[in-house]
């Protein structure tokens, strides 16, 4: 993935367009996914901020990881993340992605999402309420607009660190390059 970002005003325009229209791929990895339908439908309606669901990783910009991750899910999450296109963001959702949450002593779930994928932001709560989700996503939009959301660059820069952590937990992981 060559690094062809043109600095300066063109980048600001792209950042501005990016934060106004986000295609969200909510990978319902855990129990948090039950709070997303209310957020996407009539009552809380996240589509008024330009955030809509995407059907496949190719069309998605935002990977919303909702809830705990078993090792089996982590492997598929990494494949999904790598299928997404360059300006991509990961938002950890619920306390299970922060420190393992309620399953801190479970032998099959990972305890910290940002050791395996670059996370822009966490939304805390043992299933955050729809209002908290919207608040988190609005903050993400501001971060994108200011150009601070550079998780995908952090992933590129210290690729070795992330690959080691992933292999430590999953054994071998199929690499695309």
């Amino acid at each position, binding site marked *: 993935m060559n690094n062809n970002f043109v600095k300066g005003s063109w980048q600001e325009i792209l950042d501005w367009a990016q934060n106004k229209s986000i295609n969200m791929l909510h990978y*319902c990895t855990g*129990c948090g*996914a*039950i709070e997303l*339908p*209310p957020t996407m439908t*009539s009552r809380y309606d996240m589509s008024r901020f330009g955030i809509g669901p995407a059907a496949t*990783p190719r069309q998605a910009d935002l990977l919303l990881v909702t809830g705990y991750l078993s090792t089996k899910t982590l492997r598929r999450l990494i494949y999904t993340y790598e299928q997404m296109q360059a300006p991509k963001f990961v938002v950890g959702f619920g306390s299970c992605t922060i420190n393992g949450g309620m399953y801190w002593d*479970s032998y099959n779930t990972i305890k910290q999402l940002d050791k395996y994928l670059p996370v822009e932001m966490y939304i805390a709560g043992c*299933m955050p309420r729809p209002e908290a989700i919207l608040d988190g996503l609005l903050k993400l939009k501001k971060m994108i607009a200011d150009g601070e959301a550079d998780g995908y660059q952090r992933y590129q820069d210290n690729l070795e660190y992330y690959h080691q952590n992933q292999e430590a937990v999953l054994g071998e992981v199929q690499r695309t390059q």
Partner: protein
Amino acid sequence: MDKNTQTEIFFGPNHPGVPGNYGINYEFEGDTVTSARANAGHLHRGFEKLMEERIWIKNTALVPRICVEEPDINEMVYAMGFEAIGEIEVPRRADYIRSIILELARIQGHIFSIGGNAAGIGQYTVMHWGTLTRDYLLDIFEEITGARVYHIYIRPGGVRQDIEDETLDKILDLMDELENERFPDLQKALFENPNAQKRWQGKAVITKEEAIEMGATGPVLRANGVPHDLRKMMPYAAYDDVEFEVPTGENGDAWDRIKIARDDMLQSIKIIRQLINKIPDGPVQADLGNGLKYKIPKGDAYVKIESKRGEYGYYMVSDGSLKPYRVHVRGASTPLGLYGVREFLPGTRIADVPVWAKSLGICPPEFDR
């Protein structure tokens, strides 16, 4: 699978048409599925192991997280298991409140699954309306228990706190609003819609023998005209004080199952009204001493109740210590999600795979645990 005519599709684990984090790897030829295999295990967090590490009262916070669509069912079965082994008598008012909570959870679960089924065939308007209606129920739950989805309200020995009378009146008003405004909208938009009927009729048929042989219960069985309902067969909580019919279908297809979900909701409204009118006074929690030192004698019990998808059971073993010795969860969709996919999915069309998965109410955390 010979390469030149058949291709394999990974349907899930991350796919809009699949219910939850669960995959079906099927091979298809032309437009028909030839063989299928369940790709389960994505949601496994070792619940039963974690329960053995925590004292009795702590598990009430862990238990509702097993099945996301119906958290109260898990709390109820866990409490009933504890009371069955310890032979504990629950005050009558607690039984009534438990039944009200369970029926509200049933309506909320059914509305959500009707919305999910409608989204599976492309009718997004009903999904939006369904989820909106479900939110009104979550507001009631928030008022009773303080939380939207995970209530941690039904505890061993009774319920956490009493329901005030204003909340009971609010529930009655909501029931009237559901019956007179919300459901007629859904009825016109979905159940009198010729396209929806064409998409669901005759699809994902599970006959009576197949269902009984496989151990599938609930709407899957009742869609074949068999009025089996654990609330009638093995009455628990306050279900022996209320009258209600068990809705059934004729030919066991997706269309009947979704109509049963609608009729179930109407029956639940009737039940809630009877419960609220006849609710007795009195304590809501049996006196079991200090919560942190709950202890029950050595013993084991298999308890089960009627969730919206069928029989939901726990096999609990206690060795007399402060922690449960073993808890085995039997989800309602376990036989369908693992065995049913391999046996009954081949032969359906690709367009009907989401209809098949969603109308049978496959809830993957139940068998991944």
